[in-house]
């Protein structure tokens, strides 16, 4: 966007919280990286000011036999596909009641457990809520049928969806998903964050070229500018690495997911401590705020 007049007009529209016209979306999508970054940074600061949040997550496999959750976790996340409703409930009960919000599961897996029956799905969510679940960990937008209705059922059951994720999208379909998500409507606070960087990252075949740095920060920036219906734009510390996660904060992201609750060598060079996260956030000129799995600030 070398055209200063168009940039100024877009900036005014965004600042006034006005909807963007199709031509403006196209202009944004073709804007140069730094112009896009400036607009996205302004948009994230209007919502979140100087704050950048992060969460320390302890992942617990749904079929884990012994469960020991680290004391520093601010979210316990039950991962994996449950074999049955009972297995899902048991896994949640095993980690609930420790004063740490419990999230878990992918929404499409829970829908699968309910065999697609709406009433059964609603009942399952209530069972899990009673067992101690506060939120479904993720709704994978490219794996979930009728996400808006599904989120409404989750909200009805008194739960939230922690984040929307994209499993696998390349090229133009990345932006298409952002626009699709932006077009959905959800009950207030039913969806807490949108993680717009596709989680499948494979360059194993020529057709599946890995995303570049430009691709990723553009995706983050466009998400912040177009997705008005979700408060947080999220990146993942362990998945994307500290450097990209930090740079993404300056391109519109405001929340860092996936900070390990224990330091571990398994992450190799991405091994980290909460101090590293705070240092990275400060070095990006933001104020670090730790949150829990319920998206509440942690002051302890």
């Amino acid at each position: 966007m070398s055209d200063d007049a168009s940039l100024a007009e877009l900036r005014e529209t965004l600042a006034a919280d006005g909807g963007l016209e199709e031509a403006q979306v196209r202009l944004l999508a073709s804007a140069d990286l730094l112009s896009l970054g400036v607009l996205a940074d302004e948009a994230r600061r209007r919502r979140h000011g100087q704050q950048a949040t992060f969460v320390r997550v302890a992942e617990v496999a749904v079929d884990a036999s012994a469960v020991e959750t680290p004391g520093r976790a601010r979210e316990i996340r039950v991962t994996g596909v449950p074999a049955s409703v009972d297995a899902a409930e048991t896994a949640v009960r095993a980690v609930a009641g420790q004063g740490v919000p419990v999230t878990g599961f992918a929404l499409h897996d829970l829908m699968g457990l309910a065999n697609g029956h709406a009433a059964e799905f609603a009942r399952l969510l209530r069972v899990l809520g009673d067992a101690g679940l506060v939120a479904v960990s993720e709704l994978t937008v490219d794996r979930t049928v009728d996400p808006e209705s599904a989120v409404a059922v989750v909200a009805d059951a008194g739960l939230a969806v922690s984040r929307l994720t994209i499993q696998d999208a390349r090229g133009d379909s990345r932006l298409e998903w952002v626009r699709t998500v932006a077009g959905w409507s959800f009950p207030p606070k039913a969806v807490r964050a949108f993680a717009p960087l596709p989680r499948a990252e494979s360059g194993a075949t020529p057709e599946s070229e890995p995303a570049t740095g430009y691709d990723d920060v553009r995706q983050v920036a466009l998400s912040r500018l177009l997705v008005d219906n979700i408060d947080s734009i999220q990146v993942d510390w362990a998945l994307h690495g500290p450097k990209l996660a930090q740079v993404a904060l300056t391109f519109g992201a405001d929340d860092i997911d996936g900070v390990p609750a224990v330091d571990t060598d398994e992450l190799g060079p991405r091994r980290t401590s909460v101090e590293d996260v705070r240092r990275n956030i400060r070095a990006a000129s933001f104020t670090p705020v730790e949150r829990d799995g319920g998206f509440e600030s942690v002051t302890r």
Partner: protein
Amino acid sequence: MSTSSPAVDALARKVRDGGRLSRSEALTLYTEAPTHLLGRLADEVRAARHPSGVVTYIIDRNVNYTNICVAQCNFCAFYRPVGAADGYVLGFDELFRKIDDTIAVGGEQLLLQGGHNPDLPLEWYEDLFRAIKARYPAFRLHALSPPEVIHLSRLAQVEVPVVIERLMAAGLDSIPGGGAEVLVDRVRRELNCLSKATADEWLDVMRHAHRAGLRTTVTMMYGTVERPDERIEHLMRVRELQDETGGFTAFISWSFQPSHTERGGAEATGVEYLRTLALARLVLDNVDNLQASWVTQGGKVGQLGLSFGANDMGSVMIEENVVRAAGAAFCMDELEIVRNIENAGFIPRRRNMHYELLGDPIVWERDVPRMTALAEARAVGDASVPEELVRYRARTPTGKRQRAPR
């Protein structure tokens, strides 16, 4: 793009008007300007200097001929002391094989650097360079950073200009800008690298090299003990010498890689890298080329460097040992570098060390096998001692024992 700081806004105008930044102005921009503004200014300066939209890269191989070093810089994870079981010196034949491999993928240069090995006299380097040039007359030797030149000058007890002259006579084509770290003696003292070269000595080697007709690069390794004003002091010293000689072809900065080093600590962040790169583009108004360091920052932040002042993606380096020893192991082959350049909206072109364009990417012309990992100097456990070493006088008892006739 205006900011809430009148001082920063005034400096942005100064940069846009082509003004030269003073030390204090550079410090204000570095510490106070928003990251996007720094990037925008650096991008504008880059575009004015390189209006064709070409982003270059070189196909070469980064070979470390020995890891034995007496300097013992506390930020270095690569060196081994004399006598260490995993210390090595590469043989001439091993180096020839590496050159063959490099030529096979379209490379035309070795970046040859190593430790300060007291058992390798100046004659070893001269013979090596001559042997390479005899076998591969067109192949370029971008070799021996200033501290290595100083080490050889001390070892051979001849002046630096004489070392340069002898190495040039043997085939040296250009000098890499390694070992600069931060060109401030307080910093160098703390990094235990003052004795390998003071800031003045480092710059003096480059001055002599430029006067002798060699072109060189210049680097900065930041993120250890230096303050922001000391990073700027480094840039100012580079700018001053460049005003004097014009001999630097490119500036390359990277962050200290702490893993496995005596110094340890945390690595500077990605945003700091982009800000430092952008500032270098603004201060170094007399250096044409700035490289993006994907080797230390990873491909993604490395590519983003192209929006923060870089116009070069560095090297398809084929082999790398120093940064890997400190825990970073990123790899980009030519296809990947070209893809990243195009994805960022630029035109990829191969270059040589003088930044002369050599042509389109090799991968556009023919199939080149994919490279998914950078090679290492030597296979782990290979403790062989090159035959030709017996021809050279060793100085240490270990070296003498190794070379004694059996």
